[in-house]
């Protein structure tokens, strides 16, 4: 472990990702708040945030639990929303391969949208593995700590703020804030339209499967859309 650690790398990672932390706070809060609203004790809500460490998976798990979905369907849905992590994992893999397994496990656990976005650029620019791995560790650690602090804020807020404020509406708004800005090309818009139509049309499906099926149909439409676009040059 020590062999790969560079103090300067760690601190630079912390510094570079710090500005992104503010944007994460509302989302982390919503996850803590959602867990409490779903009937989790404050301890379980914090454990959820510490162990799952994925906003999308946490929200899907708690919302589907409230909707009364069976255990297996909740797991399936969480698996589908976690698929993007495969993409990050594949992109990072060539750079992390020379590290020993403890470093790879630790850095994998800290792999998030934010840490990925910051770190991949650093790995592409420089070949200093010791510095880069520590940089990743620094940015990942700060992200993890900020995520837990925001969860605590959310757990506290969930116990104070009255239900009539519709605070749970912050959840779809958080996702909307990520979704809307990426709708800038035709295929993405197509995916969004197909997923919208599918999730509405399939709402009556048993076991709350409409979300997974709507999402998968959207993905299929995207693959098809790419093919058509490629065909026309």
């Amino acid at each position, binding site marked *: 472990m020590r062999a790969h650690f560079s103090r300067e790398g760690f601190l630079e990672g912390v510094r570079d990702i710090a500005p992104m932390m503010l*944007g994460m706070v509302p989302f982390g809060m919503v996850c803590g708040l959602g867990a409490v609203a779903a009937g989790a004790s404050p301890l379980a809500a914090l454990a959820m945030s510490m162990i*799952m460490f994925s906003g999308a998976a946490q929200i899907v798990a708690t*919302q589907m639990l409230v909707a009364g979905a069976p255990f297996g369907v909740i797991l399936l849905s969480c698996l589908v929303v976690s*698929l993007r992590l495969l993409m990050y994992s594949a992109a*990072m893999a060539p750079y992390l391969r020379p590290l020993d397994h403890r470093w*790879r496990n630790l850095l994998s656990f800290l792999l998030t949208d934010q840490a990925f976005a910051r770190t991949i650029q650093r790995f592409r620019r420089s070949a200093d593995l010791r510095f880069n791995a520590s940089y990743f560790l620094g940015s990942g650690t700060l992200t993890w700590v900020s995520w837990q602090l925001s969860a605590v804020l959310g757990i506290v807020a969930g116990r104070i703020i009255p239900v009539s404020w519709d605070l749970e509406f912050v959840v779809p708004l958080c996702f909307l804030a990520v979704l809307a800005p990426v709708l800038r090309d035709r295929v993405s818009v197509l995916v969004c339209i197909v997923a919208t139509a599918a999730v509405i049309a399939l709402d009556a499906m048993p076991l709350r499967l409409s979300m997974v099926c709507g999402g998968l149909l959207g993905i299929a439409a*995207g693959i098809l859309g*790419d093919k058509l676009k490629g065909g026309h040059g």
Partner: protein
Amino acid sequence: MDRPLAIWLLIFAVGAITFTARLSFIALFARRRMPPLLAEALKHVPVAMLTAIVVPAVVFVPAGVLRLDLGNPKLVAALVAGAVAWWTKSAVSTIVVGMGVLWLLRWLVG
């Protein structure tokens, strides 16, 4: 199964899923390249899944009742917030505007 137990089981099961997904290409199948169809599919996961999560929370108010009319305050708030997100790319503005519109409409309707 009672709720608290289900929640603890979920925490560990989903935790295992997210960790496995993160570990996948870094450690589990480190020697393998990603199949091209999977790579193509993964590109569309964020838009497809975010849509599938957001839409039901906005158009089924209350659950199971489809409300695609402008009398549905959550739909109006989401449309306005979506436009703000598209233009500003700012999470904070999106949340503030979305909640603001929702509260305003609720207050106007009474």
